[in-house]
């Protein structure tokens, strides 16, 4: 099998990587680029724990081939650490005890940040839909929903 070189724009930086055709985006991000906020759960699109943004859209990167992402824009939590909305969201998650085991937290933050961009003051229903594709194994959804409310508005409900 021949490796091909593709270029991913990862968190604003052009990153050439060598991939085989079957390599998944999640493996390239975690193993080659050491972006460990990207978690692997079910590997079948059932749990959403690997949610990141590709070209600004929330996607499950366990279901994407890296070779299909040549030239595309990839955003992970690592790329948003200085972003004001993300900082506020993270603070809100901490303040509301939204992380129990923490495994789903990066994906929840990505989905929440994506929601906050499109809907600055979302309803609970909008929040539930936005995070509906991410399974919290601890089932601490209410703390997460409260956190997103607060993180979006930048103040308490």
């Amino acid at each position: 099998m021949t490796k091909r070189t593709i270029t991913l724009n990862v968190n604003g930086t052009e990153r050439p990587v060598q991939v085989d055709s079957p390599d998944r985006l999640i493996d390239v991000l975690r193993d080659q680029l050491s972006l460990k906020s990207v978690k692997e759960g079910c590997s079948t699109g059932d749990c959403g724990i690997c949610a990141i943004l590709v070209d600004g859209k929330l996607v499950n990167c366990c279901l994407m081939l890296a070779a299909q992402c040549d030239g595309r824009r990839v955003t992970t939590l690592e790329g948003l650490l200085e972003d004001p909305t993300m900082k506020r969201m993270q603070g809100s998650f901490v303040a509301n005890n939204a992380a129990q085991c923490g495994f789903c937290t990066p994906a929840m933050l990505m989905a929440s940040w994506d929601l906050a961009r499109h809907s600055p003051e979302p309803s609970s229903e909008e929040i539930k839909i936005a995070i509906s594709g991410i399974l919290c194994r601890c089932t601490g959804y209410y703390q997460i929903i409260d956190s997103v409310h607060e993180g979006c508005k930048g103040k308490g409900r």
Partner: protein
Amino acid sequence: MSALELYSPTDLNDALRFMEHGDRSVAVIASGTDLLPRMRKRQVAPSVLLDISSLTEDLRYIRRSDGTVRLGALTTVADLLESPMFDDRLSMVREAASLFGAPQVRNVATVGGNVCSASSSEDLIPVFLALEAEAKLVSAQGARSVPLKDFIVGKRETALRPSEILTEVSFIVPRGHNWTAYEKLGRRNMLIIAMVNEALCLILEDDLRTIRSARLALNRVSGKIPALAARTNAFLQGKKVSDGTIAEAQKVLASELSLTSDFRGSGAYRTELALTYLKRLMERCCLKAGGTS
């Protein structure tokens, strides 16, 4: 996943030329949300993937002209949700899209992929069956249109020839007093494959009571592929809408359903759901019509 090559065509013609090689182990991949898990489980083992995901210029569109709606194969489920095309009479398209997978999946999963997957797990197929949709199949030799009910020939088997790519799903917008509705139940609300999903397109006569045409489609009728409930639809044609008619239609549907049990739910439970949904869909369509139910 073992030895595997990925070919990225420059445009649709390039993709069609590639398909001419007639290699049976070529799989067309768009977003891969269905194909990749199946490859990991070794349910399919293509040696070559033809990656059409970049052909959005040719294949990603929602158009309506002369009473026909055309959906390019790469139209995403999120595109369906965002389109104003499915507000009113065609609202079941939006309903199905809103219950499809979850946001991350809807953002990339395509109309063409859902239809080509051709199993009872596909949320959009009953909707398109109820709209009497056609699939446009294109090869380097030319194009043909196949009614969706003939396109799906078995579980994960379609009428696609080895050299063909599905490029479009289209349907004629029903005329007159027509309404649509959709129901789905799985074991949880999101990110779930349905036990039953059921779509109805109901067309009434001018009196808003007499059924001109009912097109009920389910993810399973008998066997494990989506289909129109032909006998129920034939029964409803010409009947006046009433509680009695709906009860009779439920009996007809019960007689034509042959639903098996699996880990998602028992056949008996699926049948109860399907009958309940028939009533609910009829009532919802009639409510929209402002007629009686």
